[in-house]
């Protein structure tokens, strides 16, 4: 296989791979990132090929043949006519003002901090347990019902009467409120994690989760600790989800 064909195939492969990632995830990688990778792939492939003398020759020979060999005259004529137009277009395309919206790659469930300062104390997320789970029978049922009342006085406007993230004020929120139904949100999380997200709200998110976009309130300001646990228990009970547990 000719050296140029290798370069072309490798570069094209990397380009398609990067575009494919965007296609699979529904959010395209920014073209600046794609072109950077493609450029370096091209460069590195050329470098690798030209490490050996033979490789270097395989790169230069076709060019020399093209420029000087009598048999290539026809091709040479065509290229010499087309080349100025191609380069002129590239120059135009590069200087033309381009507008690509700044993008935000947002981590929906970022790694939690080890220690959260809430309710005037430091809480170790790994160690904290949901006190409502210790209750049994009627006391537990009552706590869950209390959680429901808290939910419908505070949360349902955005997270929805069906807990599906489609409350009557969810329209136009970006990021959209999380649904609790389904198996891919709270079912994947520990209760202590959900507790952290509720008490610290959008402002408590790390930078990679774009805290400036979220309108999730900091609930420690308006709900008591016990009330937060009640509502956390309620959203699990209502949706039939189990919190993630590490120990069996």
């Amino acid at each position: 296989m000719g050296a140029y064909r290798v370069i072309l195939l490798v570069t094209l492969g990397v380009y398609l791979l990067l575009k494919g990632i965007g296609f699979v995830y529904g959010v395209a990688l920014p073209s600046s990132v794609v072109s950077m990778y493609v450029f370096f792939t091209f460069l590195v492939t050329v470098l690798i090929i030209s490490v050996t003398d033979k490789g270097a020759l395989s790169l230069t020979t076709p060019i020399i043949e093209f420029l000087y060999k009598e048999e290539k005259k026809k091709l040479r004529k065509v290229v010499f006519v087309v080349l100025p137009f191609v380069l002129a277009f590239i120059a135009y395309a590069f200087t033309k003002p381009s507008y690509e919206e700044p993008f935000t790659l947002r981590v929906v469930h970022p790694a939690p901090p080890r220690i959260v300062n809430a309710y005037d104390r430091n809480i170790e997320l790994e160690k904290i347990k949901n006190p409502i789970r210790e209750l049994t029978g009627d006391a537990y049922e009552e706590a869950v019902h209390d959680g429901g009342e808290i939910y419908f006085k505070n949360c349902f406007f955005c997270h929805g009467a069906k807990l599906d993230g489609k409350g009557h004020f969810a329209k136009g929120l970006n990021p959209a409120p999380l649904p609790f139904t389904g198996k891919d949100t709270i079912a994947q999380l520990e209760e202590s994690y959900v507790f952290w997200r509720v008490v610290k709200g959008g402002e408590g998110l790390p930078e990679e989760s774009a805290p400036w976009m979220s309108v999730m309130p900091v609930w420690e300001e308006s709900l008591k600790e016990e009330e937060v646990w009640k509502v956390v228990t309620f959203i699990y009970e209502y949706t039939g989800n189990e919190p993630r547990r590490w120990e069996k």
Partner: protein
Amino acid sequence: MIVVILLPVLSAASDIKDIYIEKCSWCHGNEGKGDGPASKFLRPAPRDLTEGVFKYRTSAEEKIKPTWDDVIRIIEDGLPGSAMPAWGGELSKAEVEEMADYILKLGKIEKPLPISVERFGEVKVNAESIERGRVLFKERCAECHGTFGRGNTTKRLKDDWGEVTWPRNFSKPWSFRGGYTREYIYSRITIGTPGTQMPSYDDPRNKKSLMPEERWDVVNYVWSLKEPYKEPRGRDLITALYVDGIIPDAFDDPVWSSAPYLSFYLNPQLKRAEKLYTPTIDSVSVKALYNEKVLTLLMEWDDFTKSVPGLRGSDKIAGGEHARDGFSVQMPLKGGGEFSEDERVYGVKPALEMGSSFRGVVDWLWRGPEKDKRDELLEFHAHGSGTLKEVPLSASVRFLSRYRDGSWQLMVKYPLKGTPLDFRSNDFTPIAFAAWDGSNMERAARHSLSSWAYLYLKPGYSFKPYAWGLGVFIITIIFEVVFIRRKRGKP
């Protein structure tokens, strides 16, 4: 044996009550009295099901019975624009029917139920019919709905439960409770909206009643009032177009027709204290133009009322004391307008609403007029919650406003240089909007706001790229000529 046969029947009855308690009681209350824990935060309030009043029924009879399909539709599809969600996917068809029976029983409504109102003499949509409808509408409907149907009522409206109500805004099809169809609009006009001041136009006692053909004319006029550009489509890039020349201080100048509207939902402020649960403004539409010197934003939002505290008419509609209308435009606070690479590439923005200690915001707040006081534009800076501080208005930021037919329009002109952030061609600036309806007692934290969007100043025509292209073209030819000459020189 009897027990075995009866058991499924009994358990079915208790099952539907269980489902009601689990899903519906939070708003409608355990006994259906509309007094669930969420009820205080909702407007329209959840229906008291024991009264058996159905606002969005389509039945012809004067008695207040709904049709079976009405009850099924409300449960299955919900009521768009209210907190009542569509339960269709959640409950099975059989459960929906059981629930309909359960709700009818709560309302002491006995079967048989009536059928839908008959729609005689349909007149298709055409220019003549719309024109006839316009005349009739102006005469019989505009008092409450406004000439262009944006719900800008001239009087304070209340429902039978003593709550203030606002007429439907016909320019926003997404707010129609029964879905946006001509048949539905016809039913509403014919039957009215039970429980509210919307009367039946079929009722001979209504002095303004209409013949069926006339009702269709009004339907067709109402149908023509939709303004689809107002419906937000989830896009968040406002493109400011370059204008070669001046941008006049006039809303109706033809220069604006070249700029497209981009619309955003406004959601009530529910993040910090003084939350707003019952907003009246739900969207804003924005246009932007700029020239060598100024960036001009044109914002348009529907507001049922022009709230002018102290003016008798305005006080009357608002029901007494009320606040001034308001609107604000927020952008990041930047010395010199330099955006860091982070902000440019990763879209880093200030925290929504008030910014944060390390990323501040500048907020241009327009406050509507009050008695003996003109409207004004104020400038605030903030670095996080509770740090809002008024500063002198940046030099030569100017504004223009008008209220017309249920819509506020606000034009703000920012010099490209000379405000806390510089605007440059080809720049992206984070931007957010907020609105206050004074008649809804919205002030300070009680307001509606958008998420962050971007404002982009699209470069105007430039010869630069063409010059580059031409230059490269000529240089390439020179190289080729030189090469060919040298080659010919060689044997």
